[in-house]
Each structure stands twice: as C-alpha cells, then as structure tokens.
C-alpha cells in the first residue's frame, strides 16, 4: 500500500511579519527515513511543529499518515514526536515518564520500554533531569518507540549529544526504521544523515529548495554524497539569493 507519511500543500507559517515557512509543497512517501536539512533558522522546526499539530498553519495545509489532518487524534495516535532538546519532565523519573505516557496514549508497549531501558542501563527510578544528555535522548526515543508509531518525528535529535551517544541514538533510529517505522528527522549536522537518510528535503530561508529520494537526487546532481549535494546546493542557492 502506498501512502504519503506527510503531505503539505502551499503550507506557510508566519510569526508577526516574518514567514518562518512559506509555499511548502511536499509529498514524502512511506518507507523512508526522510531528512529535513538546512541551516539554522531555515524553518525545519516550524515544519515539524506543523506536521505534529503543535502549530496551526498561516497558509495551506498539512496531513500525515495518508491524509490525517496534522494534530488530529487520529494523526497523533500514529505519530511519536521527539522535540528539540528532548524535553522531558525533569522532576519525574523514567518510570513516571512511562506511566504518564501509557496513560495519555492509546498504545504503549510497557514491556518494550522496560526491556530497552534495562539494556541501555538507564535507572528507571532516577529523575530524568539527573540523567546524562545521551541517556535523556535515549529515554525520549524509547518512550516514542514504545508507542509503536507508524511515523517517528525527530527535531534535531542529536545536536546536543557527544559522538558516541549520537552514534547509539542513530543506531536505534535505524533499527526502528528497519521494522517499518517511517522517520522524519531534522538536522543541521549533515554527516550523521549520510548513513541513515533515504529521502532528503532541503530547506533554506523558509522555503523548500530540493526534495526527493537520495538516490535520485545524487544521480541527477552528479554528487558523490548527501553532504556534498546539500552543501553545493545551499552555497549555490545562497549565492543566488544574495546576488
């Protein structure tokens, strides 16, 4: 069955007089790890917040998981979102976070979450604020995956992590993608996307500059790797704008 994990048409978001995102039209097919790439302030977080329904669009619309309106209960049941800096309740323990999540979601695989945290060596009784950055990120990811989502949305998931934690985190994401979970993640760190992304969306200055499967894009732009492609395109584009 083919369906789009995210579909946007003419999507725009304005804060005051500035467009954080404008004229965004996208169709990301299922079965991909889609990377949202662009410099800081390009509109990545805005697009993700629109996709999970935290923000209402100023223009256009966005649906997820085959036409479900972003932010609707049906959409949220199938999406797990890990926001930037993985905000957890700092004064709650991992066990409390599991209990909270289980209460407020339709599906929660307690056994998976418990097993995974044991494997990671994350103490469930400790307050999340006392865990290391890597452990917090892994906890947030575990909670997200325990919801058995069909789409996992990650906003700058590894920006704050050291290289080892970064590697471990992305390995978990890849493993999940291997079980059929679609992933949409944003990052301004290109190197870590090289291994994982199969679909690329390039944003700059609030607009989509490039979108497509990585293999198609590399073939048509004659670039060796995703990083080179993105850099070349961003340079070219910035030059074009400044001219």
């Amino acid at each position: 069955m083919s369906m789009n994990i995210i579909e946007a048409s003419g999507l725009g978001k304005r804060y005051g007089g500035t467009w954080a995102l404008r004229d965004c039209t996208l169709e990301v097919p299922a079965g991909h790890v889609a990377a949202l790439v662009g410099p800081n302030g390009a509109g990545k977080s805005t697009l993700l917040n629109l996709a999970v329904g935290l923000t209402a669009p100023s223009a256009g619309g966005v649906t997820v998981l085959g036409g479900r309106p972003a932010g609707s209960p049906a959409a949220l049941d199938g999406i797990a979102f890990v926001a930037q800096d993985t905000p957890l309740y700092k004064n709650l323990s991992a066990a409390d976070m599991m209990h909270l999540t289980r209460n407020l979601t339709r599906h929660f695989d307690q056994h998976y979450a418990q097993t995974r945290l044991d494997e990671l060596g994350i103490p469930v009784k400790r307050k999340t604020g006392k865990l290391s950055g890597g452990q917090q990120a892994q906890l947030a990811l575990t909670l997200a995956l325990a919801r058995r989502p069909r789409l996992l949305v990650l906003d700058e998931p590894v920006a704050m992590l050291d290289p080892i934690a970064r590697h471990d985190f992305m390995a978990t994401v890849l493993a999940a993608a291997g079980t059929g979970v679609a992933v949409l993640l944003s990052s301004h760190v290109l190197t870590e996307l090289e291994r994982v992304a199969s679909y690329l969306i390039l944003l700059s200055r609030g607009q989509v500059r490039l979108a497509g499967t990585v293999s198609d894009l590399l073939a048509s732009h004659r670039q060796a790797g995703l990083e080179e492609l993105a850099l070349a395109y961003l340079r070219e584009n910035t030059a074009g704008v400044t001219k």
Partner: protein
Amino acid sequence: MTALAGPAPLPWRRMAWVTWRHHRVALAGVATLLGVLAVYLWVAGLQLHHAYAVATACQPASSVACQNMMENFDGSYSSPAQTIVALLHVVPVLIGAFVGAPVLARELETGTFRYAWTLGFGRWRWTLAKLVPLAIVVAAAAGVFSLLFSWYFQPFFAEGSRIPLDPELFGLRGVAFAAWTLAAFATGALAGMLIRRVVPAIAATLAVYAGLVLTTDLYLQQHYARPVVTSQLNVPADAWIMSQWWTRSGTTVSQGTMNQVIQSTFERIAPVVHSRAQKTRVVTVDLPHYLTQHGYTSWTRYQPGSRFWLFQWIEGGWLLALSVLLIATTVWLVRRRAA
C-alpha cells in the same frame, strides 16, 4: 472505516494520575499553608471563645467590673485578630498564583508541552483535565478554611464590634473566600498561558488580583443591591453606612455649611461651664434631634446587615462566572494557538 471520524477520545480519568503527579508539590504547599493557619486559628479561637464566654457571663453586665472585663477582652484579642485578618487577605492570591500560574507556564517555559500535547490525549482536553480538578480542590480547601475563620471571628460579631458587611472581613467569610481563591487560580492559569514563563506569570497574577480586589472594594461591593435611604436618625446598628447628609426644605446642605450650622447651634444651646483652668461646653441636648426639630433632615444611605448572604452570593456568583470565563479562555487559547 473512515479515517476522518477518528478514534474515540481517551477517557478523562487517564489524566488523574498525571495531574496529581505534576501538581502534588503545589497542593502539598497549599495544604501546609492552610494547615498551619488552621491550627493557629483553632488554638487562638478556643482562647478567644473562652475569654468571650467569661466576659459575657459576668453579672451584672452593666457593672464597672464587667465593663472592664469586656474592654480587656477587646484590648487583648482584637489586635491579633487584626493581624490574622490582614494575613488571610493574601492567602487566595498566594494559592492562585503558585498553583494556577505554573500549570501552563511551566510546560511552555521548559518545552514539555511539545511532549504532553503530542501524546494523543488532546491538548485542550489535557488542559481542561488539569485546570478543573485543581480549581475545585483549591476552592474547596479555601471554602472549608473560611468556615473555620468565621467560627474564630464569631465573638466579635456577637459583641457587635463588627458589622456583618464589614468590608475588611467580607472577603474572608461565606462563599467569598473560596470564590476569590478560584478567581486567583483562574487568573494564574490564563496569565501562565499568555506569558509562558512561571515567575512573570506569578507576578502578573499578583498584580491583576490586587487590581480586581481594589476595584471590587472601591466600586462594586456597595452596588450589589440598591442601598436603603432613610431620614430616620436611629439607623440599625448592623448597617453598613455608605453616606450621610443633611437637607433643609428639600435641598442638600453642603458639608461645609452643615459644619458651621452645627458649630453655631452648639455654641447657642450648650452652656459654657467655667472651671478653674478652662471653659468647656456641656451638651445637654441631642444635637441631631435638635437639628431635625429645627427644619433639618438627616439622610443615611446604607446596606442593612441582613443582606450579608445576598451580597455573598452576588460576589461568589460573579467571581465564579469570571473564573469559568478565564478558564474557558485559557483552554481556547491552548486549543488554537499552541507554539
């Protein structure tokens, strides 16, 4: 299967543990604050009631010894009572600001709303499921506490040193104390949603609450019912007097003129008594009566003490309506303009 119809919403009770876990520290703070004050009121109240019982048991009541006893009761108990009254006036806003303001402000400040509001419970339902139980709990706690205060203060009303509608006490009794606590909580919740930071939201709550109390005391309370206007000189002892003025043949006499009239009348009718060092005047007639017999009419505009419960329900009612409006606005804002 229709995708748009969507699944049935998750049951409300799923939020019970979440609300408790997030706000149990704040609720424990409220319990401690009210608990400490309640213990004080209970202990002080027992002494107060005992002293008053002893003073009223004194026979004959008009004897000098008994009068002294009553004066001693006033002298030693009214000052601590004043202090506790002043203290209690800030309790509703303390509860409202410290419980109400963080409900949304903390989520928005720390970013955890991005977690909580994408879990599928629904963010406006999440907000309602937090605000309504918390509002009921703080208002109920305040309501029970104000019963204890009314008991504590009873001797002063019995003695007649305080009128039922005494503005200083009105907000601490009946349903008003609970209603003010509820309004402070609702103000805090909305301030938290609008300001999105805990400390500024608490400060804003304190300021808005102070403004609301002042407006009510200065402009609203006395208009809850049309005041009684009388030309009788003997106004009931429990009346809350708004204003008094004199007229002569249908026209109002200004305060300045009246003062002159009183002064000259006084000099005319009160004989001068010469003592060794000074001369004093001895008033042998009741001046107001004298003036009413000589063409002047005294007018008094007042609220009778029997209107206490009417006023309580009016104040409680509009504060409840305001609180519902504030909470509804908060939920509506969460629903439509999350970050």
